[in-house]
């Protein structure tokens, strides 16, 4: 506990350093490095727009992410639990999973009819692979005693996937979901930098184009807060669902 609290002290410290640096910079470069107070004012003034941007961004992130998790789990559990399927898909996983999904952004925007559809698609690709790899490896490494138990109980394939492999893989799935969530945010903002007219990434890009750096920094901080909230929510869900895993 004391360690956690002392960690919180880091924030005022960082703001202090920030204010100090902004103060000692030569006047001609100050507009590039706005002081905390200027950023706070910009943040306050932009809250309405930022909220609209959040809604627009979430309309992309949530469907893309949820679809990715569902597909990755539904597909990954049977693949991981079936030896031939695991071997069959291993080369694809090795080649496709490490491709940085940002490379798909321009093509997806060109290919799909609306910006929203293409952004959902890239978020989907970015979040899918980490969750899929987690589901596959989790379902492939179910402890022997659980597999033996399932066999003695006479479980069929489907029952094994649903009642044993899925649960045993859940810790690995959640690890993948954490990585996938971070990926989803990166892809969302990259996509918005490219092609959106609303959204958090668009907000940052827009004010950078106008050299309104207080607003731009405010947008970065706000986006950080949104990301942090989403990750915290995910961690809560994980704690709830993995109560048995101690």
């Amino acid at each position: 506990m004391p360690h956690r609290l002392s960690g919180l002290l880091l924030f005022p410290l960082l703001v202090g350093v920030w204010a100090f640096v902004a103060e000692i910079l030569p006047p001609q470069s100050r507009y590039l490095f706005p002081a905390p107070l200027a950023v706070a004012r910009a943040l306050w003034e932009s809250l309405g727009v930022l909220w609209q941007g959040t809604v627009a961004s979430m309309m992309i992130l949530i469907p893309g992410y949820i679809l990715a998790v569902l597909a990755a789990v539904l597909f990954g559990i049977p693949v991981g639990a079936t030896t031939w399927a695991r071997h069959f898909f291993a080369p694809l996983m090795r080649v496709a999973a490490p491709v940085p999904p940002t490379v798909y952004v321009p093509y997806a925007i060109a290919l799909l009819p609306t910006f929203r559809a293409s952004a959902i698609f890239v978020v989907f690709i970015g979040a899918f692979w980490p969750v899929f790899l987690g589901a596959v490896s989790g379902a492939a490494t179910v402890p022997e005693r659980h597999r033996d138990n399932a066999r003695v109980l006479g479980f069929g394939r489907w029952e094994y996937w649903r009642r044993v492999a899925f649960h045993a893989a859940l810790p690995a799935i959640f690890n993948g979901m954490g990585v996938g969530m971070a990926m989803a945010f990166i892809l969302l903002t990259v996509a918005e930098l490219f092609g959106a007219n609303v959204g958090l990434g668009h907000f940052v890009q827009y004010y950078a184009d106008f050299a309104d750096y207080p607003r731009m920094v405010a947008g970065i901080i706000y986006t950080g807060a949104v990301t942090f909230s989403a990750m915290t929510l995910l961690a809560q869900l994980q704690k709830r669902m993995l109560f048995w895993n101690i």
Partner: protein
Amino acid sequence: MTTLRLADITFAYGDRVILEHLSLTVADGEFLVVLGASGGGKTTLLRLIAGLAAPTTGQIFFADEEVRAPSPQRGIVFQDYALFPWYSLRDNVALAVAKSEPRLSRRERRERAAEYLRAVGLGDAAAKYPHELSGGMRQRGALARTLALGSPLLLLDEPFGALDPHNRARLQNLLLEIWRAATPRRTVIFVTHDIDEALLLGDRIIALGSNPGRIIGEIKIDAPRPRSREDIITAENFRSYRAAIQACYCRRDDDEAVDGDGGGI
């Protein structure tokens, strides 16, 4: 009548022979204890009977059919507590009920599960999860689940090995009560390394020698039930059973000796 027959079983991991030329028949309703040292191949033997592994040579027959795969007919309680940690006790047992009584509705299944849990003294813990239970409670839960499978053959792999003496004695009594109350009686194969436990429970004791595992002796225990724990230590007939078992191990090898108080061999 013979329910289980092992015909000249050999089992090896690679070129390491674990069980060698093992033949055995078990009668319907018999309580057979397999006694042997740690690492002697007792778990391996039960896995073969359960159908979780296949013998390298030889065959196993249960109810006149060759054992080729696991089946709810041959329920097993594993050495380590093997309930699914993500399900409550009741749901764990209900999974077994779903196999033995597939026609029941979901609600009836859970009620049956609760009955099995009451039978092992876990009526109040039905909604708990394995991580919330003590070792003894988990092992009772595993027993309840295996009973709920309705298997005519029960395979128990040192089920009380990790328990303190008090809990172990309680669960031994419970197991005997359940076994004696059922008609027809289930056939039980109970694995242990503890002579006292073997003498208390068994109709017959098979002494398993290690490296490679083979049957080195067989003692029929004719003492009436219920048997008192005190008699097992002091009574004349049990002293001679004990001596007979120890003789099996002494005959075979000097550095193998059986330990009477459960400390291992």
